[in-house]
């Protein structure tokens, strides 16, 4: 999968699914923390993001600590999706 394209698609998905009306997809930095950082996302956002990514790329994000690692940043999430998606 084209990595740059995957990153862009993830950026758009995050802004749309989490209804971040005041954020431009391009402003989401690859290594910035998704949770506990400037975006001020919460556990409900994490659930929403997991479901959206799973549906879009047909992957299964494990629960618990593993999920925390995968959802750390755009980079970790994109690496997981790239490795798992068919």
């Amino acid at each position, binding site marked *: 999968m084209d990595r740059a394209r995957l990153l862009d698609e993830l950026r758009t998905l995050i802004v749309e699914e989490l209804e971040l009306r005041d954020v431009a997809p391009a402003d989401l930095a690859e290594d910035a923390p998704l949770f506990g950082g400037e975006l001020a996302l919460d556990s409900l956002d994490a659930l929403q993001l997991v*479901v959206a990514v*799973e549906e879009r790329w047909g992957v299964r994000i494990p629960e618990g600590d593993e999920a925390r690692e995968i959802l750390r940043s755009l980079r970790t999430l994109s690496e997981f999706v790239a490795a798992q998606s068919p």
Partner: protein
Amino acid sequence: MSGRRVAVTGVGAITALGGTATETFRALVEGRRGIGPVRWREGGDHRTRVAAEVAAVPDGGGLGPAPRSRCERLAIAAAREAVAVSGVSPGGVGGVVVGTTTGGMREAERALARLARGDAPPDLGEALLGYPLSATAEAVARAVAPGAVARTVTSACSSAAAAIALGSAAIERGLVRAVLVGGVDALCHLTWVGFDALGALDPEGCRPFDRRRAGLSIGEGAAFLVLEREADAAARGARVWAWLAGWALGAEAFHPTQPEPSGARPAAAVRAALERAGLAPSAIDWVNAHGTGTPQNDAMEAAALRLALGEAAATVRVSSCKGQLGHTLGAAGAVAAVVSVLALVERWLPATGGLTEPDPALGLRHVAPPAERVDARVVLSTSFGVGGAVAARLFEHAEAPPRASAAGGGPAPATLCVTAAVASARDGGAARRALEPRRTRRFDGASMALTAVCADALATAGVAARGVGLVAGNGLGALGRAAAFLARVDQSGPRFAPPAEFPQIVPFATVGNASIYLGLEGPVVGVADLETSAEAALAVVAAWIDDETPFLCGAYDVVDAFTERLFGGDPPEAPPTAAAAVLLVETPAGAARRGAHVLARLEPLDARPLPAARAWLAATAPAGAVVVGTGGAELAALLAESPWAAVPRTVAGSDGGPHRAPGTLALVRAVELVEAGAREVVALALARGQVHLTRVSAP
């Protein structure tokens, strides 16, 4: 004063464990579990496939038309039992108050999903007959209490607790002599999939307070109580099953789904209920806890009990019935109330089903199975809901002697002071810009509009949000949003239901959002009564308001393409438009104490049937102006043939955006007329044969 306590003179219930209150209670004491594999609606990749379903739902026939939904059938069964047990004649029940969150969703959801996907389901009309949230209360009134005023309140999983608090207030203030209060919810796909998407369901069945607890189990059912004033029950020689000794409502104003971990607001509600009852924490023999079995709820609840009860929290017995009955959502507060009453009567404390390894971190004294034989005198029952509404009730043994401080407020204030009156801009656009985008990103137009008018009202009146309550009316809920969610679930499967969307579809969401955004910690509840939802909201506020608690009282509506298409109208251009209107009301003493600038005085007059309204108009000196809410043509005819024919008339709603329930808008206009110099204005609404009248006058 003696004879003023609130007596419970009838109980009724239908649950996964039984078709009556006593059947349910005996099964609880025997330790039977009502949670099992879901029999309804096979198929779909749900994570969780267990629930507490009612095996046999009576058809509910009898008086009036046949029930149109499972909710109606469940509610009628429990309500009929409660009235029969009480011995009150059906005509003697003055009010019916129902707390619910789903209404006829179960019957409507397939058709809604198909419609949202562009189909035209042939059974649409029939599927939606029982859909409005108020339909169930109307059906209960028709079936078991003809002529009673029917009210519907919704505050998510504490809905029935709000209904009981409203009924109790009506009895304490002498507004009715006997009231039937309770709650109902039927299993539906929306709540099953929605809670599953949130990860809130325990796939193995709920285990409240257990170390391994992993969520709730959805249940279904209905429960009702008949409440009367002590003197009235005594006069007719009725058996008193227990006393409703005290209650309190509040809100966490924290998060759409997460409980606030300190438990501060629930603790404050428990303390307020104790104060109202004139009881000390040490008087409580049993806590019939909300105890859903989610890790967060049970931890918060333990913290709240420690805060509220102090040392007594470590020694008082605690159970949750949800391990056996499931979480009956909007009915849960009423099911818990009936169980609390029967625990006092039968001298048994049901255990927490499923609890085998108590979580040591909670520091509670559990009734782990089996049930305990205890002669309890006082039971505390708590209820919490997503969106943050909290409630506490105290039930006391029938043999308890009266206390000087027992519940029993004076009469309701005859007039209320309006200290702010705000209606939203027609397109809701201005409001959207005034609120913080990040904190409102999941809000739909209705939430934006209601939050914005409430913020304006608080700012205008200079009142701190914290101690303020909010009661807002709406007839149809987030119909388009619910349909879109259901269509998405149909398309992608339950596994991919969007978790963050579900909490926004709950009928309480709009009120909850406003409460959370603004920090409103007073009683917060939604009210439904179709096109007179605003009038119903005002009646609820009039029953609850006291000198300490100002209330925001209003209504909101949203018009989207889906809803318009459903009702055969022209689909408006996207985006959907929303509107809201709200009054800040205070008691005269409350307003005087804080030196508030009073815009107008408000006197809600009872709703009355057409002939009585005609007589009232004939006998009452015409006001300076009339503002018409709903029911324009019929009302115009009524006024034309009365001495009020020449009174200048304004029709609210024509310039107020998409209000299907323009009652608050009418009151805002009336207040504006008073501010502009009118001495007295009457706001009128007419719907389903009832005329609602509110007098608005110069302060």
